């Protein structure tokens, strides 16, 4: 599939719109996971608006592609995207984390339409994706299963158990995207517990792996195109991203992993996003 410049421009603008809606959902004075949400936006746009077979018409069809947010704290980005697709009510997303809301702090597949997996306890998403792929294969469904894991999340042993299972069972339609934003809750990932070389580690486990600029939609789409060849996987895309991407004062630090914006900061952030169009 080729991506012409107009389509690419549309995806880039979509990413800006997702970031703006995300900040609007987060609003002022409320604690949210800013850094790890902003870093993953371009990945989510490339998946939902370019690669995945997933629409308001087929989101409950068993043959749909699946997306699992293994780094569950970034689920607000998925809420915004599901809102844009018309699967959830965009206005209702603003009730996020409030008592009685459909939009929980971490993914709840029983409460939120379009959420495919219960995640939040880190390291469990790839196993769940493998199980999804096994069930789909048993039912004769031909689809793709995508998931995003955080780089800090790779410190969880279960991820590596699951990384053995995917090739063992020939689950070539599983594609893991590592949001390599280099920061976790309390500091720099590789100072806390080094996870590199991520791509080589996964290759040694039997995966195909590739590194891309994870905030460049064009590179992401090109990498995702490879998953259209079902013999190619399992495929890992190590997406080098910037934590807090798109809002300069939030970028490249762990300090805004979980943070609340002041009114001034919110206005500044929205202005910068608008100017980036």
């Amino acid at each position, binding site marked *: 599939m080729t991506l012409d410049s107009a389509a690419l421009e549309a995806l880039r603008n979509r990413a800006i719109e997702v970031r703006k809606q995300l900040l609007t959902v987060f609003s002022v004075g409320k604690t949210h996971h800013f850094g790890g949400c902003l870093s993953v936006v371009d990945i989510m746009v490339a998946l939902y608006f370019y690669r995945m077979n997933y629409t308001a018409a087929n989101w409950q069809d068993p043959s749909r592609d699946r997306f699992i947010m293994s780094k569950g704290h970034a689920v607000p980005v998925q809420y915004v995207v599901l809102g844009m697709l018309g699967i959830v009510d965009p206005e209702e997303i603003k009730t996020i984390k409030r008592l009685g809301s459909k939009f929980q702090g971490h993914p709840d597949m*029983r409460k939120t339409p379009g959420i495919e997996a*219960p995640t939040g*306890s880190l390291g469990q998403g790839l196993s769940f994706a493998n*199980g999804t792929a*096994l069930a789909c294969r048993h039912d004769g469904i031909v689809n793709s299963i995508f998931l995003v894991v955080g780089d800090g999340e790779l410190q969880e042993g*279960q991820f590596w*158990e699951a990384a*053995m299972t995917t090739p063992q069972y020939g689950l070539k339609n599983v594609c893991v995207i590592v949001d390599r934003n280099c920061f976790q809750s309390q500091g720099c990932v590789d100072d806390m517990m080094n996870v590199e070389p991520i791509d080589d580690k996964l290759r040694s486990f039997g995966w195909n792996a590739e590194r891309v600029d994870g905030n460049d939609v064009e590179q992401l789409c090109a990498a995702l195109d490879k998953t259209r060849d079902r013999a190619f996987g399992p495929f890992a895309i190590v997406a080098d991203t910037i934590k807090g991407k798109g809002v300069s004062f939030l970028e490249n630090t762990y300090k805004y992993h979980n943070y609340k914006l002041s009114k001034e900061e919110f206005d500044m952030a929205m202005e910068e996003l608008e100017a980036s169009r």
Partner: protein
Amino acid sequence: MSVDGTRDGFGRGLKAIAAQNPDVFAMDCDLGRSTRAYSITEVDAGRFIEMGIAEQDMVSTAAGMAANGKCVFVNSFAVFMTGRAYDQIRQQVALPRLNVKVCGSSAGITQGPDGGTHQSVTDMNLMRGLPNMVVLSPADSGQAEAAVAIAHEHDGPVYIRLSRWETEQLVPSVFELGRLQHITAGDTLCVIATGPILASALYAVNELGKEGIRVALYNAPTIKPLATEDVLAAVDGFAVVVTLEEHSIIGGLGSATAEIIAGNAGGNGPRVVRLGVRDAFGESGTADELLAKHSLDGPGVARSLRAIVAEAGAR
């Protein structure tokens, strides 16, 4: 009637439901022969999934399958099944109410020679505390077979406690989820037991009967939910109720019974005496030696019941 373990009944039950339902799968972590999970391969080898020695990955993978319409029985020794994979069971099975059946094999001190690392005495405690989780504890292999069918019928998470310890058939196999099974009538003492250790209760009840002490005996094949009205009816009029389990006295059948009595019988309820493993880990030994050490063999239970009767008097 056969002399075998509840794990053997589990294997037969799994095979039977797998033959009925093409969406039933079994997974194991390198213990499939011991746990009898391999029995599903006699129906369809493609529905047994070996996960390697990775209990956490097994549970989350099963959850992913269950979210897509499958009924998955995950298997390991009870100690690893409920301990090693506790977070996966909590986060990805119990919380989202997925159709995964958690099967804990070789439970209790009768696991034997492998010692304290392998003897699960807290599995019912761990599973009972989880919202949405049903906890089954069949007494013999026939009842284990029935437990598999009940777990299969229940759309949601179930823990099945299984044992390698071999007994004769002790009770009617068929049971109703949550209900007690009345085994013997009596007027001196009420005993509620769960699991194959019911064999020790039956021995003790018989011995005490010879001495003119009549014991009302119940079997609890379900630990959660446990029917409040059944427990209250069973203990009605008794000064003492004794619970018996091959498990810590903290958090299992004894606790469940005490909670019901404390919460519903007001100040008029009976005293609850919990027989089981008294807040201790296991150790190496034969099953018989370990049961004797913990006074959970037939003579040991008989001694405990006599002492209770001597202290409390009749009723």
